[in-house]
């Protein structure tokens, strides 16, 4: 089929195909209650899934593209590293419609005191059932101190707009479905749940994961892969598994149908997994930058369906073939307000964002489509996600003032952030982060060794802005909130962005060689 951008409006339940028709009325495939006569939603930018980063200038070889577009690791079969060197963009999207990014609006005219008062006001009203209140082990607890089964985890943020110095402080929580939280007798068990999260972590990060001593006999699982059922102090990662020795989740989850719910295959989350994260303003307390109480956004994704390696392979090859034959075809995005938009990889995404008064409201479908490009169509993701594969601990990073995380190391042994700074020749995709550029890059565009060592040990040295910059970023973003112009770009930018207003399909990007992961 040939894609285009399709949206679905407010939902009724979907219908099965193949039931008998009624007379006279156009025969329908079944007869559910009809939805109201809702017109399809208006979409301004049919290429809303192609984010503004894709229009960043790459002249002279500056390369912000490699963060997302790269040769992938199965079961990601997108393999789009060649996008770094040769531009692939549908004709419609060659025109940049992210007007807020091309011409950042004037920051909100608001004094420090009023601004701080605004960002310190919490606006989360339980849009999801995560309380965003992690204890010291990362367990999210509600007002009565009960676990909500969400667990906070910390990851070094993907370079670019997810660094606090580029606008927002984030956090992330993950939750597995009910069966993973219960033992084999069906009783809720935090210990079993923690084990299942460790098994998941081993599969997604593709490493062994240390666990408290676990009795493999009771669990009925050889977690450490030593061929015997004894006491395990780690979940071993073995891939591909020997036939008949595929890893499994434990407790009640061990009885789930793997064809429907999945299993710990390398690089995949089980069906029903949920991930939520907030994007927050920046607060300044006693001269130090912290995540604010006020949320810019709540972003939620749920794995609605298990897709095997083969399912993902078929889907990726199909898309690739379509693009090769007709590069101008826009992507179909399917979904609705109730369940969210589909990423094409089995996940649905939804979000909430501030209205003009700062009250969180559901994102429009066009605003949500913005998530689909990165979470559903690039080579860099692990089962549609970025952060969990980069996890370094079960805690909320922002709660520790962004301290205590080391820089990720690339396959070639070099620091990920250092290489990124030198590739983009600045501190953000658009060259507007003059603070980072001035502090960390010399006049040959290199990061001096001393500074590199400093942020290699603690990334907060690099990624946290000065208090002045933090407040300036808040002001820049607030202007967009007041205008409710998120569909035109929601990045908080200070300075003139290096961005193209028009791209050329098939043109060389100016990047000579693709940067490998």
């Amino acid at each position: 089929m040939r894609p285009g951008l399709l949206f679905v409006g407010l939902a009724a339940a979907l219908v099965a195909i193949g039931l008998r028709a009624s007379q006279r009325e156009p025969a329908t495939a079944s007869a559910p209650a009809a939805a109201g006569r809702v017109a399809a939603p208006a979409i301004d930018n049919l290429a809303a899934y192609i984010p503004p980063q894709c229009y960043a200038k790459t002249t002279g070889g500056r390369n912000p593209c490699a963060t997302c577009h790269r040769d992938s690791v199965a079961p990601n079969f997108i393999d789009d590293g060649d996008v770094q060197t040769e531009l692939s963009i549908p004709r419609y999207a060659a025109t940049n419609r992210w007007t807020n990014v091309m011409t950042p609006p004037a920051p909100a005219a608001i004094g420090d005191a009023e601004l701080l008062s605004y960002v310190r006001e919490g606006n989360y009203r339980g849009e999801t059932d995560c309380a965003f209140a992690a204890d010291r082990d990362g367990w999210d607890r509600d007002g009565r101190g009960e676990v909500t089964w969400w667990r906070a985890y910390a990851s070094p943020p993907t370079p670019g707009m997810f660094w606090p110095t580029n606008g927002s402080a984030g956090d992330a929580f993950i939750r597995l479905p009910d069966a993973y939280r219960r033992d084999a007798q069906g009783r809720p068990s935090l210990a079993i749940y923690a084990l299942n999260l460790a098994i998941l972590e081993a599969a997604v990060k593709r490493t062994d994961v240390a666990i408290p001593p676990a009795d493999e006999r009771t669990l009925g699982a050889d977690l450490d892969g030593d061929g015997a059922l004894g006491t395990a102090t780690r979940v071993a990662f073995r891939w591909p598994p020997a036939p008949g020795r595929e890893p499994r989740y434990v407790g009640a989850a061990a009885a789930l149908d793997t064809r429907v719910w999945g299993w710990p295959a390398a690089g995949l989350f089980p069906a029903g997994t949920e991930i939520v994260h907030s994007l927050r303003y920046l607060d300044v307390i006693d001269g130090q930058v912290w995540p604010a109480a006020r949320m810019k956004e709540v972003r939620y994704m749920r794995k609605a369906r298990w897709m095997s390696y083969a399912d993902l392979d078929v889907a990726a090859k199909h898309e690739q073939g379509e693009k090769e034959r007709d590069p101008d075809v826009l992507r179909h995005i399917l979904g609705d307000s109730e369940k969210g938009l589909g990423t094409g990889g089995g996940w649905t995404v939804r979000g909430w964002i501030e209205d003009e008064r700062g009250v969180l409201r559901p994102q429009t479908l066009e605003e949500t489509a913005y998530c689909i490009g990165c979470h559903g169509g690039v080579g860099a993701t692990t089962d549609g996600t970025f952060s969990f594969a980069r996890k370094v601990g079960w805690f909320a990073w922002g709660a520790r003032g962004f301290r205590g995380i080391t820089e990720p190391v690339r396959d070639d042994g070099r620091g990920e952030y250092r290489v990124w700074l030198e590739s983009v020749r600045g501190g953000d995709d658009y060259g507007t982060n003059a603070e980072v550029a001035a502090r960390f890059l010399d006049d040959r565009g290199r990061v001096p060794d001393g500074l590199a060592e400093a942020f290699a040990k603690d990334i907060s040295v690099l990624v946290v802005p000065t208090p002045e910059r933090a407040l300036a970023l808040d002001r820049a973003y607030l202007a967009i909130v007041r205008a409710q112009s998120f569909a035109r770009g929601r990045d908080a930018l200070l300075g003139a962005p290096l961005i193209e207003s028009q791209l050329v399909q098939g043109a060389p990007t100016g990047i000579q060689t693709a940067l490998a992961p």
Partner: protein
Amino acid sequence: MIRQTIASALLATMALACAGEDGKDGSNGTDGTDGADGTNGQNGTNGQNGSNGSNGTDATLKVLSFSPVTAPVTDADKRRVLVSSEALVNNSLVGLQYTTVARSGDTFGTAVFGRIVDNTGMPVRQQDGSEFVSPSNDFSSILDVGNQLYEITQFETQPGAMYISQLTQSATGVLSMTSTRPVDFSSVNGLWNPCASSVTPWSTHLGSEEYPQDARQTETATTVAQVTGSSNVNMLRYFRLDPATVTVAAAKAAFKPYHYGYPVEVSVASGGATSVKKHYAMGRGAIELAYVMPDRKTVYITSDGTNNAFTMFIAKTAGDLSEGRLYAARWFQTSPAGAPNGSADLYWIELGGNAKNADVKALVDGGITFSQIFDTATMAPDGTCPAGFKGVNTDSVTRAECLSLKTGMELAASRLETRRYAAYLGATTEFRKMEGITYDAAGHRLYVAFSEVNNGMVNGHATRDLGGPNHIRLAENGCGAVYELTIGKDVVIGTDYVASDTKALLEGIWLQDPANMNPYPAGSPYAGKNECAVSAMAAPDNLSFVPGYRTLLIGEDAGSEHQNDAVWAYDLETGRLDRIMTTPYGAESTGVYFYSNIRGRAYIKANVQHPFGETDQTMMMDPTELRSYTGYIGPLPAMN
């Protein structure tokens, strides 16, 4: 109301269609002369009975009329398969529905409908052990062999698949699938990306292989992706090679581009055994469909994609496609350049000579490469070529090239590089997304569908006409068109089924035409989602003629042209165009094909690819889940 009008028409026609009149009475005998009163004269003998009048001809009341489906406007309707609720077929009103026969992934015993197998018949697996199940079923044929109904379904994946399934038909005409198995293509190196197909007059399934890999790229490949084409690397799994670890040399040893891109015929024997043939003699390309004419010899072949040829194969022996001559059309436009409603005369240029499958296969098995067939040179930016080379512009991937045929390579070029060679000899290779074909035998008209009229089909396209002859010079129409071709005798070519000219029959209405922008207004339920007028067909793909009823069925393959793909019934007599089916968001209607009589019932086959999704009780629902459905509209009473 349809009902009343037709009813009165019925009565009127009934009056004419009576039994034959009695013969006239004989003339009276002459009177007797007057006599005396006396005995009465004898009565005259009766005249001879007149001979019976001949019977009046039966009323040929062939009426086919569907209650139209209005284009869906509510969100709920846009998520459903909507089908005409009833049709008037001659004197009967028939209730209609869409019935699903099977979905990809359905299990029948140990078989999985749409599961891909390797050349030993074992399921192909990814590194996590998962099996490949194709979500893209395209055409299905229904065959009746040895007192058993079979359905052969094509799955459009790499490796490709066909499944042969047994069907039962209930007393009320409902078809059900009872078993299925994959068709074995190991004798022909596997099946490559099958698309549409047709049923031959001798009841075999005639399928296709679409978008074959460019052999020129394979020859110089330095990576595995370049050997097969990057979206096709999984074809290596057919040979039990893992694309992630195989060497370029091993890939090249197993995978030959010239093994793929042909019409593929599947015969079913009584008892269900299948045999397969790839018809190398019919030429290679991005075959959409091969359609056999009633003489069982003349075959029209369309290709999808950009800058394609339109070819015609004349089999040496009726009913046997393994040997014959091949021709490519040359479009001589008679309508003004740059205008819509095109018309053209068609000439046919012979490619190579008579060829046999075996001879072409021998070339392939001998390891022939592209560079043994053609020399190449670099084309200048203005589209000219060095002396001794000819400029051609074929395919969206290979584009404009300068070629020179090597000595003695006519046979190889004609069958293995059909499109390039057609252009080389001056045929037209500007056709764009040429897909469905169907024939009206009574009217001697062939119909073909162009899903889009753009690229090489416009006048002087900057890239697609570069270096080429710019034969086709139509106005751009993003919504496509259906063209009608006149079929008749050609004494030189030697069949009665040669297309001599063509003209537009139906065109989509392009609201996003830059020269004439006329989008739906804000607030319209169609705004922003339909580049083409909803009231007209757009992106036509499948075509199927309903013989005797002068009706052309048109299946759409629309993306941004129409938000919901539709199937239309076009009455060639009245020009009435009725929508008879719409498919959900993101779904494509495929395999639209009319069967006039399967054991007393008629069916309109229509498959739905990628329906939006099903009601689900557990909230485990992914709106992008791809599964395709094979099914039909009907049953209707037999209509032959």
